[in-house]
C-alpha cells in the first residue's frame, strides 16, 4: 500500500471513529438530560430517524429529481417487517431478539431495509414513465395503498396495530444511521456517479443521449432511499414496541417532503437541518400549556403583518436599511405579542385559553407557510453548508451593503 492510500485509509477510519463517537455523545446527552423523562430520550432517538428519512428522501427527490411523496410507506414497511420477524423469533423473552439485542437490531435494519427496497422498486417503476406532479401523485397513491393494505391485514394486527417485542433502545444507533445516510449521500455527490444522478434530475433526454442509463439511476435512487427509510422503520419498531396505522399517518409523508423542500432541494445539509428543526418545533411544544387567546390572536396578526412587510422589503427595498428592515420586524412583533398579549389577557373573550397541544400543529403549519413565502427555494437552495459557502455569502452580503453605501 503506498502512502497516499494509507493516508486515505487513515482519514476514513478517523471519520468513522468521529461518527461513532458523535453518536455515543448524542446518546450520553440524551440519557443525562432525559434521566427522569423518557420523552426527552425519545426526542433524540426520533430526531435521528427523521434526519435519516429526510436525507434519504433527498436522494430521490432532491438529487435524482424524482418527486416522491410516499416516503412514510417505506418507513412503515421497514417497521412492520421487523414486527413480523420479531413476533416469530421473540418467543417470551427466550428468542434471538432478546438474547442478542444489538446484532438482532442491526439484522432487522438490513431486513427492514431490504423489504422496503423491494417496495421502493415497485413504487419507483412508474417513475420510468411519469414526471413531476404525476409522479408525485402516483407515489402518494402507492404510499396510501401500502398503508391501507397493512391496516387490513389480520396478521399485521389490522387497524388495531401490533406489538413488537422486546424493547431495544439504542439512541446511538439511530444517530449513527442518520450519519451513515448523510455520508452515503455526500459520497455519492463527491464522485462522478452523483453527477449522473444530478444529470437525470436536470434533463432526462440529454442524459440518455449522453449514454447515462436513466432507468437504472432512477431505480437505484428509489432502492437506496427506500432501504434507508426501511432501516429507520426497523429501529422505530423496536423502540416504540407498538406500531399501528396511527404511527404512520398520511401527513408523515408530507412532512418528510416538506423537510426536503424546506432545506433546499438537493442539499444534504439543508435536509438535515430542516428535519431537525421541523421535528423539534412540534415536539418541543409538547410542553406548551394553555395559551390565552390574546397571545394567539395577536401572534397570528403580527405574523401576517411581518411576513407582508418583509416580503415587500425583499422585493422592492434596496436601501441601506434593507437588512434592518428584514430583521427588525421580527423582534418588534415578538415584543408586541408579548406585551400586548399580557395586556389583553384579561379582556373579555380574549381571556379564554387554548390547549397548547392543539396549537402546536397550527404553529407547525404556519411556520411552513411562512418559510415558503419568504424563501421558496429552501433555506440552502442547492447549496451545501460549508465554510467556503458561508464566506461567499458573507462576502456578497458585505459587498452589497458596501455598494449601496458608496
Amino acid at each position, binding site marked *: 500500500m503506498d502512502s497516499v492510500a494509507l493516508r486515505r485509509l487513515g482519514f476514513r477510519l478517523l471519520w468513522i471513529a468521529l461518527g461513532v463517537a458523535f453518536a455515543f455523545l448524542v446518546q450520553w446527552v440524551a440519557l443525562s438530560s432525559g434521566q427522569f423523562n423518557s420523552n426527552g430520550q425519545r426526542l433524540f432517538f426520533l430526531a435521528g430517524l427523521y434526519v435519516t428519512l429526510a436525507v434519504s428522501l433527498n436522494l430521490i427527490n432532491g438529487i435524482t429529481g424524482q418527486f416522491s411523496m410516499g416516503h412514510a410507506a417505506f418507513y412503515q414497511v421497514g417497521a412492520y417487517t421487523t414486527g413480523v420477524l420479531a413476533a416469530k423469533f421473540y418467543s417470551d423473552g427466550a428468542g434471538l431478539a432478546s438474547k442478542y439485542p444489538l446484532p438482532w437490531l442491526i439484522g432487522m435494519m438490513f431486513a427492514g431495509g431490504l423489504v422496503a427496497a423491494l417496495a421502493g422498486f415497485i413504487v419507483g417503476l412508474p417513475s420510468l414513465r411519469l414526471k413531476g406532479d404525476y409522479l408525485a401523485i402516483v407515489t402518494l397513491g402507492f404510499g396510501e395503498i401500502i398503508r391501507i393494505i397493512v391496516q387490513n391485514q389480520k396478521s399485521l394486527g389490522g387497524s388495531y396495530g401490533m406489538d413488537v417485542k422486546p424493547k431495544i433502545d439504542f439512541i446511538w444507533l439511530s444517530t449513527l444511521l442518520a450519519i451513515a445516510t448523510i455520508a452515503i449521500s455526500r459520497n455519492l455527490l463527491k464522485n462522478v456517479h452523483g453527477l449522473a444522478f444530478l444529470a437525470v434530475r436536470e*434533463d432526462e433526454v440529454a442524459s440518455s443521449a449522453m449514454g447515462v442509463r436513466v432507468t437504472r439511476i432512477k431505480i*437505484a435512487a428509489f432502492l437506496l432511499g427506500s432501504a434507508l427509510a426501511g432501516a429507520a422503520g426497523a429501529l422505530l419498531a423496536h423502540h416504540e414496541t407498538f406500531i399501528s396505522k396511527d404511527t404512520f399517518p398520511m401527513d408523515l409523508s408530507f412532512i418528510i417532503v416538506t423537510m426536503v423542500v424546506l432545506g433546499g432541494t438537493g442539499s444534504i445539509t439543508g435536509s438535515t437541518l430542516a428535519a431537525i428543526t421541523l421535528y423539534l418545533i412540534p415536539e418541543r411544544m409538547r410542553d406548551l400549556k394553555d395559551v390565552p387567546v390574546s397571545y394567539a390572536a395577536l401572534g397570528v396578526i403580527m405574523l401576517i403583518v411581518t411576513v407582508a412587510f418583509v416580503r415587500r422589503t425583499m422585493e422592492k427595498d434596496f436601501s441601506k436599511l434593507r437588512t434592518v428592515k428584514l430583521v427588525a420586524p421580527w423582534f418588534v412583533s415578538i415584543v408586541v405579542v408579548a406585551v400586548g398579549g399580557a395586556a389583553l389577557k384579561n379582556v373579555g373573550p380574549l381571556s379564554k385559553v387554548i390547549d397548547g397541544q392543539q396549537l402546536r400543529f397550527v404553529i407547525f403549519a404556519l411556520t411552513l407557510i411562512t418559510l415558503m413565502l419568504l424563501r421558496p427555494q429552501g433555506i440552502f437552495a442547492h447549496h451545501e453548508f460549508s465554510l467556503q459557502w458561508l464566506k461567499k455569502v458573507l462576502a456578497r452580503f458585505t459587498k452589497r451593503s458596501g455598494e449601496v453605501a458608496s
Partner: protein
Amino acid sequence: MSLLSLDKATIQFGGLIAVNQVSFSLDKGDIFGLIGPNGAGKTTCFNLITGIYEPTGGSVTFDGKVIAKAGKSAGPESIAKMGICRTFQNIRLYGSLSAIENVMVGGFLRHRTGLFSALFDLKRAADETVELREAGMKLLQAVGLDDVADVRSRDLPYGSQRRLEIARAMATQPKLLLLDEPAAGMNPQEKMDLMEVVRSIRDQFGMTVLLIEHDMRFVMGLCEKIFVLDHGEEIAFGLPEEVRANPKVIAAYLGEAH
C-alpha cells in the same frame, strides 16, 4: 468505408411523413453538412440516428451494426455507448451543474467503477472521478472554456453554452458527433471561432462530424460534403459547390418562381 448509413429510413407521425425514404452514408473523418429549409426533417433525422425516435421503415447502420430498423431502435443510451453523440438545437445543458460537471457527465458512460464504490467513496471511484475531471478539463480547453470550468452552465453566455454542449458530447468519446445548429445565435466572430473548433476536433480526435446549420457561409466553409433535405426527402447530395449550383436546392430555399 462508411461509418454511418441510412437505408430508406422513414419516420411517419400519424399522417405526416417527417422523413421519407432517406438514404445516405457518411465516411469516416468527414465533416458532413445536413441542410434544408425549416421543417425539412433535419432534427428528426438526428433523433432517428440517436435513438430518440424509432424509424417506421428502413434501417440505420453504424459501424457495421444495425442500430435501428422499422419499429425498433437500440435506444439513445446504447447508441451513445456505441459512439454517436449529439448536441441539441435548443441547448439542453444541466443548468445547475458547472461547466466541468457537465463535461464529466458526458464522460461517465465509460465508467468502470460501480455505484457501490461511489457510495462508500472507495479509492477506485475517487480515482476515476479525478481522471474524468482531468479529461474534462482538456476538452474544456479544446473549446476554450477552461477558465469558466466552475461556473454554473446556466450562467454562461449563449455562445459558450453551445461550445460547452460540444465539449460534453465529445466527452463521451464518440466516433460520430452530431451537431444540431451549433452556430445558431452566434455573431460572425464566434462563428469563425466555432469553425476552427470543429475542424480541430476532427483533426485532433479523428471524429466524424455531421452538422445541421442554416448559415450557408458556415456550412459551405466547413463541410466537405452536404446533404439537402426538403419535406423529408433527399433533394441533393454532393460537394458544397455542386449543391450550391443545384437548381432543386435553390428552388427549395427560394421558391419555385426563381
